[in-house]
């Protein structure tokens, strides 16, 4: 009944092929853009149909494998091109194709007039294709195909302005860091495949098969190894410590790319993967704790950096890293639904924020271009007071900011609060819970602060753009604003599908739709958790209290931002001059990039150079050439036996014959 599922990735692939092969000939931007957007939109339609079919099934049967063809078989190893449709993948399908469609539409406006317009849409379609493979693949290998595929598209799109060195560098950095993660993913796959096959004769990498046999896995031990490997993969793709540094640099790409790939979809692949493998992760307490702690640290750490950045997209990038940290907290504390929930809401509001910032940059760029100024169009210090020029953008941006800050009633509140509550109350990590929750809460405060700092600096206050440019500022065309409106709407209401039970009860028993919907996916993990962990009872009043605290934190953050950037803007400057070292460190992202360069990149290069010049050329070739030289030297000595006098040759020849014959005679 899901026979048409293969159409979902097929449409973007067709779009990619058309735009990639013929785009240069088509030339007409509208046609190219429409093809791109239509391809993704068609996928969206099929996804919706699939979703409707899926929820028409009883919840126990909501997991369907659709095999297309056998990919490779060698010995015990078998991998198919096959899709898995279950609630989780279906949700991801909707998010990817839905937001993907909006961003494609947005891009038609945003990329207008860019060189290589067709190339952009081809890559974007290819990205959607890969992402769809990632979320629908029914085995680890196919997921890995998507996993690497999105990495590739990310590389291509970050390096879209390839003539800029920084863009090329950023693309390469993203790809290589992702590769480090992929290394972990591969090792995890191998270990999983080998261990299960070797010990239980089940040679499989298919998710449903693995989940079925989840009980064969022990607690900890090999599972910790496997899951840590997978988690390394997730940190690469989802920009967590220690592999997060590529994401801020990835902002070199066009803004729609940042919205689609580096906020809404690709970077959440790690979260999705952990959700997909939840039955395995839950069996390793060590890994769960690692995931949660890394998530919490990343959430906090990235948030601190976010407070000091002036580039509008960089702030959003660090915010993304930080929010991804939240999702990992959710995963790490066993609140898989909450993690996925945050993934979804984050996709809405962060996509909206990025697209909004894109609209701002677009407008700024146009205005600055008009007056031939070379000011940075992305620097917030050049903005301010934009709300009167771009009211719609401002409105959508504000809604999303409120959502991310965690103000009640907006989507971010529900998902973030759920994660924080679970971090506090989960039965897995004992006293470490306090650390996780503490970091999470602190990050929430910082988030509210830097996001509103962003809003205030960009849209409020006096207009700091170079004089004469402000009259060129204008609201963006409809093709850009429309996606913003849709996303803002989703950011506003998206949270209501996952209202916590506590609140739902208050409002007349609204169920947590999302939790029910995702239940079959995480059933195995939840059962295991129920059986193994001591569920401490927490009172409703505590939960209410923490929820209240979250709200307070959000407002405090907003208030601080208001005080510092609206009421008395001189304070930040004073602060900066009071603690110059601290500010410098934060502004320079704690010098992590430099540290990596110093510790890994440079040693590798010097080692390579040493091995080449030292070992290859000196030792190996030295030996080879040395042998040659010895032979030559020897020959140099004995060549004087070649006198050039024929009688010498004749004599020695006769002598040789005599000796040989003599030998046989006297033998």
């Amino acid at each position: 009944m899901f026979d048409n599922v293969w159409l979902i990735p097929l449409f973007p692939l067709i779009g990619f092929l058309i735009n990639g092969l013929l785009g240069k000939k088509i030339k007409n931007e509208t046609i190219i853009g429409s093809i791109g957007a239509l391809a993704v939109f068609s996928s969206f339609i099929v996804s919706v149909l699939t979703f409707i079919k899926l929820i028409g099934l009883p919840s126990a049967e909501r997991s369907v494998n659709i095999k297309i063809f056998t990919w490779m078989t060698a010995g015990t190893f078998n991998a198919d091109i096959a899709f898995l449709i279950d609630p989780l993948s279906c949700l991801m399908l909707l998010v990817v194709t839905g937001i993907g469609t909006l961003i494609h539409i947005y891009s038609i406006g945003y990329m207008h007039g860019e060189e290589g317009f067709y190339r952009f849409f081809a890559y974007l379609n290819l990205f959607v294709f890969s992402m769809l493979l990632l979320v629908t693949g029914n085995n680890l290998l196919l997921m890995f195909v998507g996993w690497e595929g999105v990495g590739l598209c990310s590389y291509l799109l970050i390096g879209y302005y390839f003539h800029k060195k920084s863009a090329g560098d950023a693309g390469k950095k993203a790809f290589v860091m992702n590769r480090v993660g992929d290394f972990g993913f591969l090792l995890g796959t191998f270990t999983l495949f080998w261990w299960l096959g070797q010990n239980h004769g089940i040679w499989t990498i298919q998710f449903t098969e693995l989940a079925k046999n989840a009980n064969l896995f022990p607690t900890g031990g090999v599972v910790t190894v496997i899951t840590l490997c997978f988690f390394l993969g997730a940190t690469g793709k989802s920009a967590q410590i220690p592999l997060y540094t590529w994401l801020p640099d990835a902002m070199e790409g066009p803004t729609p790319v940042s919205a689609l790939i580096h906020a809404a979809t690709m970077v959440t692949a790690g979260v999705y993967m952990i959700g997909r493998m939840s039955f395995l992760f839950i069996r390793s307490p060590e890994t769960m704790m690692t995931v949660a702690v890394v998530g919490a640290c990343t959430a906090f750490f990235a948030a601190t950096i976010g407070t000091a950045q002036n580039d509008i997209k960089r702030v959003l990038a660090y915010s993304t890293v930080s929010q991804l940290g939240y999702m990992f907290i959710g995963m790490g504390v066993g609140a898989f639904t909450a993690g996925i929930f945050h993934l979804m809401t984050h996709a809405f509001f962060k996509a909206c924020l990025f697209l909004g910032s894109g609209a701002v940059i677009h407008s700024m760029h146009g205005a600055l271009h008009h007056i031939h100024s070379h000011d940075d169009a992305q620097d917030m210090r050049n903005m301010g007071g934009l709300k009167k020029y771009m009211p719609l953008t401002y409105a959508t941006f504000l809604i999303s900011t409120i959502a991310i800050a965690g103000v009640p009633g907006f989507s971010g509140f529900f998902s973030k609060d759920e994660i924080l509550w679970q971090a506090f109350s989960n039965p897995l990590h004992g006293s470490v819970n306090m650390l996780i929750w503490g970091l999470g809460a602190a990050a929430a405060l910082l988030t509210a602060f830097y996001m509103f700092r962003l809003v205030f600096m960009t849209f409020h206050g006096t207009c700091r753009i170079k004089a004469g440019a402000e009259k060129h500022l204008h609201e963006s065309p409809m093709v850009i604003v429309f996606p913003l409106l849709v996303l803002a709407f989703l950011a506003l209401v998206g949270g209501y599908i996952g209202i916590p039970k506590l609140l739902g009860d208050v409002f007349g028993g609204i169920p947590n739709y999302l939790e029910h919907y995702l239940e079959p996916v995480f059933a195995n993990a939840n059962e295991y958790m129920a059986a193994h962990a001591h569920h401490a009872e927490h009172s409703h009043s505590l939960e209410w209290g923490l929820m209240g605290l979250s709200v307070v934190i959000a407002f405090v953050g907003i208030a601080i931002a208001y005080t510092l950037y609206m009421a008395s803007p001189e304070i930040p400057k004073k602060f900066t001059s009071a603690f110059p070292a601290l500010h410098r460190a934060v502004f320079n992202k704690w010098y992590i990039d430099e540290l990596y360069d110093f510790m890994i990149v440079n040693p590798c290069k010097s080692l390579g150079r040493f091995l080449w010049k030292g070992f290859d050329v000196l030792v190996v070739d030295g030996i080879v050439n040395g042998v040659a030289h010895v032979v030559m030297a020897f020959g140099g000595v004995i060549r004087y036996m070649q006198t050039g006098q024929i009688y010498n040759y004749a004599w020695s020849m006769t002598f040789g014959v005599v000796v040989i014959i003599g030998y046989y005679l006297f033998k």
Partner: protein
Amino acid sequence: MDNLNNYLIVSAVLFSIGTIGVLTRKNAIVMFMCIELMLNAVNLTFVAFSRHLGNLDGQIFVFFIMTVAAAEAAVGLAMFIAFFNNRESIDIDDANLMKW
């Protein structure tokens, strides 16, 4: 008269004389003639054995050796002429380029 040994002794002596000639003379043409002498010594052995064994194969061999000698003479003498054209000499001492 059918004494094989006599012929072989003569052949050995002729061969040795030829060898000495090749090793001691400087004139390339004389050396060449000494080589012919050595070949003839061998030919004599062939014929003598052929006669003794009652088999004609040895004589056929001699026939081929003569052919080769003829070819050799043609090419060798041509080389001497070429050499002489270049060096105005037929001394093998002057052909000393094939050295280190």
